[in-house]
């Protein structure tokens, strides 16, 4: 089952910490967002494999935007 991991806040993508195909565990940091000078890590809600990365570093994202798809 695919899990869509969303941005919990409006901001920009500072760093992408994973690559497609990578196995991740619950709590692993997938993406680090930046908003108002704060780094906000986006963690994997469950273990899985990175199926898709929908954003690029530097891109602006709105709250609720899908960043990564896990399967």
């Amino acid at each position, binding site marked *: 089952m695919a899990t869509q991991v969303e941005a*919990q*806040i*409006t*901001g*920009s993508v500072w760093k992408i910490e994973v690559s497609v195909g990578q196995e991740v565990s619950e709590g692993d940091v997938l993406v680090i967002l930046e*908003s*108002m*000078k*704060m780094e*906000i890590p986006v963690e994997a809600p469950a273990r899985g494999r990175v199926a898709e990365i929908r954003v690029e570093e530097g891109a602006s994202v709105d709250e609720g935007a899908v960043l990564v798809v896990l399967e």
Partner: protein
Amino acid sequence: MRGRLFPLGAECYLPAVFRRVLVANRGEIARRVFRACRALGVESVAVFSEADADAPHVREADHAVPIGPPPARDSYLDQGALLAAVRSSGADAVHPGYGFLSENAGFAEAVSAIGATWIGPPPAAIAAMGDKATARSVMQRAGVPVTPGSDVLHDVDDAVATAARVGYPVLLKASAGGGGIGMVPCETEADVRKGFATATARATSAFGHGAVYLERLVHGARHVEVQVAADAKGEVVHLFERECSLQRRHQKVLEEAPSPAVDGTLREALGAAAVQAARAIGYANLGTLEFLLGPDGSFYFMEMNTRLQVEHPITEWTTGVDLVQLQLRLAAGEPLPFAQPELRQRGHAIEMRVYAEDPAKNFLPSPGTITRLRWPAGDDVRVDAGVEQGSKVTPFYDPLLAKLVVRGPTRDAAIACALAALSATEIEGVKTNLDVHRRILEDAAFRRGEVSISYLGELMKRPQG
């Protein structure tokens, strides 16, 4: 007539300090500097990113220059764009505000190189205090007490040996650091062995070089800072202390002056140390010495901020000195208009920083549009705001919306005034930390003045009600 007031109120007519001042900043601090410019009969120039085209600070200045796209590195941190704005606007001086390029010695030099005056200290003083390990050793040599600790550590074994000498617990810190970034607390040798690599890596990624030093971690310490002012002739005074212990993630939340932990004797000692420190580095203009104050009254130099502080209003309201007007006058080469014995601390002032952040979501920033805004008003309330109703709070800059500053003849009166000010404040459209301030002001320990750097973190962990 362009009559102007001395900061202390004595009337005095002098030629305008500058013709036109450019403020290389945004938000509340840009507006604050414009106010000082108006009072002194000086024209003001705003700069703005594309995200700030409709911001209040842009409308309030006499001139406004666009400097680039929303991200700070492409606008408010873009030295080339700012220098071009100085030239095109004909500004003869630059006020950097706080944050952004305010502590960038290279930018200060570049401003001077194009013939404009930097409203701040000499670049050499900025550079010396910008490197935290250098600042420590400079202050140590000047006889200012520093936290037991080290110079830059060579390697992990050096770190372990030094920690054993200094005594646990210790704090590993990035030498180029600030804002608490990259600090690693260590209770044991094993912590140091593990933490050294972490601290080095964090220092490298955040500041571009990995130099790390360590200091003893003083438990139960407060953060108390002293305002200094110095003129070009080397006269230095202090304008007493501010209590800044209430912090979250190393960001100050609520400040007050005077500090409830400082009595007359300690105040004199802190002030003398701050003046001695400023003299030792040939300081000029405004600066702030941050000290750790131990529960036993011992104090140690932490760092020096070579710029105007966010929390300067509480000093203004307890001394009667307009610090920003003073900055402009000092930068223009005027001597200090007062000597130490003429300065007094009167009454009590509290500053509450209003941040766009969501306490329910672990204080995540809360960008959005301010749909409703009402500020308190009154003789004992001052609101330094960067936003107004309808303002868009973007994710590009820090989350400070405004500073609510209150005063009273006593600390209790100031606290009562702060609670009243909060009740009269309404902000809708973005989440804010107004309730955090209410919790602080109603907390028994805070009311007794019993706080330390860890106080606010612990208060936030406590269940509400």
